[in-house]
């Protein structure tokens, strides 16, 4: 919240949190202070289901390069799956 750079996106899927698997409803994407990554800022993604409380969270804290590569790779894999008629 120091940077105020945050966006929420609906995401259907399942994630494994501290209490096991749960159905995720949303991803919160921010460029802000991470909790663990040894940087002042990181690209943070929290996959959450707010109806289960703050503990229903799967967190990643990515470097800039890592975040860009992840986004490109997701697009690439989905495109290839579409090309092969798997989606």
């Amino acid at each position, binding site marked *: *919240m*120091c*940077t*105020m750079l*945050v966006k*929420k996106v609906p995401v259907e899927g399942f994630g494994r949190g501290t209490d096991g698997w749960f159905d995720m409803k949303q991803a*919160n994407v*921010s460029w*802000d*202070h991470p*909790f663990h990554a*040894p*940087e*002042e*800022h990181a690209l*943070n993604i*929290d996959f*959450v289901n*707010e109806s289960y*409380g*703050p*503990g229903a*969270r799967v*967190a990643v804290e990515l470097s800039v390069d890592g975040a860009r590569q992840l986004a490109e790779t997701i697009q690439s894999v989905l495109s290839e799956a579409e090309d092969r008629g798997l989606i």
Partner: protein
Amino acid sequence: MYTTDQYEGMLAETVALRGADGNRVLAYCARPLGPGPFPGMVLVHHMPGWDEWYREATRRFAHHGYVAISPNLYERFGHGSPEDVAAAVRADGGVPDDQAVADLEASMHYLRALPYVNGKVGIFGTCSGGRHAVLVASRVAGFDAVVDCWGGGVVMPTDQLTPQRPVAPIDYTADLNSPVLGLFGAEDHSPTVDDVAVHEAALEEHGKDFEFHMYEGAGHGFFYYHRPSYRQEQAVDGWEKIWAFLGQKLSN
């Protein structure tokens, strides 16, 4: 000054108070044992939440002779690990300024009601807590000293104002009625050296009592010993400046 034949004791515990809109807010309170009177300090936690560092810092202030209280500004987001709760707050762009101001004002009044507080209450905050400290001391009477450690967002361009943070704290500078100690890192991205200079100019323009220190070789969060941002030399000097400043401003 502490001497080795001196009695020391401390009480530290979770307490509750009524914050904004009368809602219950938990707070961590630590105080030296004895009748006092001791000066009071409100500690405003940082963006990563009401975490272990802040409970330790609360006890640190008590160790140095203050009745210290640190309210959980994220109370309305539910309970869980400090990181999980703070992540939920981060996703919502922070807590509303009005709510934070009311919670911190309630914390100040909590201290003032205690029979072992000497009638002087200061406020300390780091990161977003530094911003909150400046904000509440500008909007609410009753704070006798402010310690702003690298509070980002005191200076805010209009395009960064939000419903939660509708006014930049610097715009309240004329109403600030307590002295300010500011500690900043020259390598910080929020606040930048330029942001700090703008804040400094506003304090000078309004004739406020303040001292700012800009540390070379330090960035954001240089007190946090559990993070790579920790800078031992700058942190030691910063704490010494805090004790000197508060000793001067909060003693009777």
